[in-house]
């Protein structure tokens, strides 16, 4: 059981990748990408977790108490920001594609461009 969170991360990554590979809509594709990226949050937070550790916030908790790793939490924060920016750009590109091709299906768009 001690590897379960890591396996969850692998599962999220693959399920998101499956969604991207079979997507019929660019907006659905962007959502699948966020699913893939959430696997990295799960992985990072799972790595930093310590049994019976508190949050690395020492307000009302003495310094030296068992706390989880703060560095991976900061990395997860960065990860989320990057995820937001990427999804924003993909959705803007999807709007652009829809304006040109009148469709959001990647297969049809590829067919249009021959």
């Amino acid at each position: 059981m001690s590897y379960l969170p890591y396996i969850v991360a692998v599962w999220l990554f693959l399920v998101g990748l499956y969604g991207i590979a079979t997507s019929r809509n660019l907006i659905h594709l962007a959502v699948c990408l966020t699913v893939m990226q959430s696997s990295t949050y799960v992985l990072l937070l799972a790595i930093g977790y310590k049994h019976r550790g508190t949050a690395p916030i020492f307000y009302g908790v003495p310094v030296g108490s068992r706390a989880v790793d703060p560095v991976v939490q900061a990395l997860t924060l960065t990860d989320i920001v990057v995820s937001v920016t990427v999804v924003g750009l993909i959705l803007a590109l999807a709007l652009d594609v829809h304006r040109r091709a009148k469709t959001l299906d990647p297969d049809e768009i590829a067919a249009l461009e021959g």
Partner: protein
Amino acid sequence: MSRRARITVFAFAAAGLAALLVASVVDLPAFGHYQGAYGNQLNREAVAERHTTNVVTAVVFDYRGFDTLGEEFILFASVVGVTLLLRRHKDSEDEESVLRKAPDDHTRSDAVHVGGLLVPPALFLLGLWLVAFGLVTPGGGFQGGVLLAGSLFVVFLAAGFRPYHHLTPTPWLDFAEGMGAAAYTLLGVGALLAGASFLHNFMGPGLRGTLESGGSLPLLNWATAVAVTAAMLLLFSEFLESYVVPSTRPLR
């Protein structure tokens, strides 16, 4: 490649990838037993060094403040990208014509109006609290900034496009986004002028566990909050405007 062929290829590739990923994660330290030297050291020393009780915020805006500068410019670049993609259809249109063409989305439900009066101020206050106390208790500039932007977005949900548009004038958002990113950079330069290295925390640590703790950290925190709020609102506004005033003209 046909759809069926693509899924077959994907199935084989994904099975291989799954095997590799599982093989690599079972060699990670067992869940709950990680001993990260850097994280442990920060947990021991950050409070004594910086007097901020939230070590995650201390990592984001102080120990790894330079990475956050990069992160902030990623956000900046993304907003610029979205704006370039969506705004160029509107070159010929001024603000007035955008507002004139917008559909009538005025809400007529009293319940929604009351909710629209109650929810945004509460969310805004919560956002300010998250930013201000982000170095003491859970929170920080990024989290608070998203909530501040979200509180204004509720105005769109409750009252429609025009009130939201009046509340968040794009020139102000552009200005705030630039100033937030610039303030972060200038605080880094301030450390250089004080004789330390770039983005070094060049002010005193202050009182432990209070808003005065952290030296230049709370200033970087607020600069980030302003930049993130403006960035989120700019993203909302660009998408909203291209939604309410759709351009049918294809791009060249």
